[in-house]
């Protein structure tokens, strides 16, 4: 449900942008022949906006449906995403540097949170898990942090 809200909002925003972009172009193309021309072009622009937002909505919904993440206790986190272009991101626990929970204004309004996982790599050092409930994000972060600390203790204990 949360995901669908998120998608709807994204779609609406994209549609509005598409409308704002196409409208002046259409006005230019169809000419300023009085009020009728202006109205015609804005209706056409609106149509384009709706089409784009429906397309995006569908795409985001599909993406949201296949998006999965998995916490493997003691091992790390795996994120599966993408419907057509699929990606699996494997983040080992031992490589985690720090964890952030981010909540933008939109996310706060929808009651969502994003967990950000950072490693020390040079290319894919940041992985985001969006669309979590705040409680879930908090729980996941606390769990990971506790494991990280236990891991560190084990390493220190076993060294001579």
């Amino acid at each position: 449900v949360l995901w669908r809200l998120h998608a709807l909002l994204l779609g609406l925003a994209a549609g509005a942008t598409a409308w704002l972009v196409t409208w002046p172009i259409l006005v230019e193309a169809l000419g300023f022949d009085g009020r009728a021309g202006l109205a015609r072009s804005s209706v056409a622009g609106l149509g384009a906006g709706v089409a784009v937002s429906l397309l995006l909505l569908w795409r985001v919904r599909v993406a949201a449906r296949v998006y999965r993440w998995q916490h493997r206790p003691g091992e790390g986190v795996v994120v599966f995403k993408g419907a057509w272009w699929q990606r699996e991101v494997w983040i080992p626990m031992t490589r985690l540097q720090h964890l952030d929970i981010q909540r933008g204004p939109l996310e706060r309004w929808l009651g969502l949170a994003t967990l950000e996982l950072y490693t020390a790599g040079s290319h894919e050092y940041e992985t985001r898990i969006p669309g979590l409930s705040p409680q879930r994000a908090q729980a996941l972060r606390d769990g990971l942090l506790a494991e990280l600390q236990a891991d560190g203790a084990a390493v220190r204990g076993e060294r001579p």
Partner: protein
Amino acid sequence: VSGAPQPSGRLHPWSWLFHAAGALKELAVPVLAVVVLKRNDDFSALGLAGAAAALACAYGWLRARSFRYEVLAEEILIREGLLMRESRQVPFTRVQSVSERRGLVHRLVGVTELVLESGSGGKPEAVMRVLGPGEASRLAEQLRLHRAARAAGAGEGTGPAAEGPGGATGRPQQVLLTLPTVELVKLGIISNRGLLVVAAGIGVLSQYPDLLDLVPGAEQLAASVYGRLAEAASAGVVRLLPWILGLLAAVFVLVRLLSLGYWIVTQHGFTLTRDGDRLRVQRGLLTRVDVSGRVGAIQRLVLERTLLHRLFSRCTLRVDLPAALVATGHVPRLNRLAPIATAEQAQALIRDCLPGLDLQALAWRRLHPDAAWRRWQRTMLWVMPAVAPAVALAWGLPGLPADAGPVALAAAAALVAGSAWHARLWAASAAYAADQGVVAWRSGVFSKTWVLVPEGRTQVVTLRRSPRDRRAGTATLCADAMTAAGTRALKLPWLAEADAAALNARLWRANVEPLAYNRPVPSPGS
């Protein structure tokens, strides 16, 4: 911070000069442009340059005066800044690499610029601009002693506890590679480095075209070359060929000459030494650079053999050490273990860095059988949209020589056939190996590259499947490591899906069970 002791050590008395030079560099381009372009108007231009220089000197003097430091037993205290005063403590344990830079002016005055870096990324921990020779070597020695003591403490059972009277690790420094000038000349001929200089020159000229006026006769030369070209072109495309080839040859020679100069200036007297766990490179004709890094921190080794390398039977070996995430200006770092070396030398160096690795014995595995076909398709994806309109234009456009259309078509056909052949050769030679504690990747038809990443060094691993991949049963595996900012340590395209999954599982295990991995002989029971 009021309780902490105030550092009292000062930089070398000439430090203001180098701080001023740093500030002047920022102002140089605009000032120079004005000075060059307004030659007629001497007074204001000279005044501007003078004002910039005076400003920079004043800034440099204040900046150098405000810098205080103190070397303690375990750390360095630093206080610096003019308006924003900053106090820092840099523990020796944090310092991963020490680099020294001595430019021509540094050497005239007899000083050294010292940069202390940690592996964690971000800015350098400390930039000492500049220290006298005594101070610099004292600080470097103290860092070395501290490291040696720590190494002895960590590996009590294994390491030799010999603390010689000279200090350090007790093991002698071992020279791994030196490059005589003959080798640097070969490197200059092999490398394309001069291309960068040419590109920079073109960039400057496009910004300030008036600069061309300074070169006597440049305009006449360009005009006469252009006239001859136009004359030849009107007689047909085929007549133009010798001209194009001649021009390419001239550019080639120019680029080689520039790279020759570049490499001799930067790599003169190249010496790679090993002192315990540290690799150290000293090099440079005018600016002496002294950089070092830990063998145990090596993230990746890259061996390159281009067509020209093979002509001289040489190769280039690069190394990636944990790097700053933010690019930090002109801090030199250890990135070329061997700018140029024979295959035997390179293999010896690789064995030195990754003990026990036998390159010849790696169990190479091929890519998916479709790899050649897929690679050719990918090339066509960007070649076709560029070539098709060009051919159409060559046929249809009026005013072109009569043979333009057929020649363009023949060239396009050759390109398509050639790339198919290239893709086949590429797929036949590309292979990966997960063996002997490293992940290796080799590829290339004319220019060959070998990439070696120690298994325990990978970070995030990503598996990617496009719709085409899913139909063909292939996947692309990307592995991240602490290499230079923005680079990808390893990308293995078009693996068979099962192979990619197996490799990912292997890398995952190496990271999830780091203790088991670090043991010298992994016991299957644990």
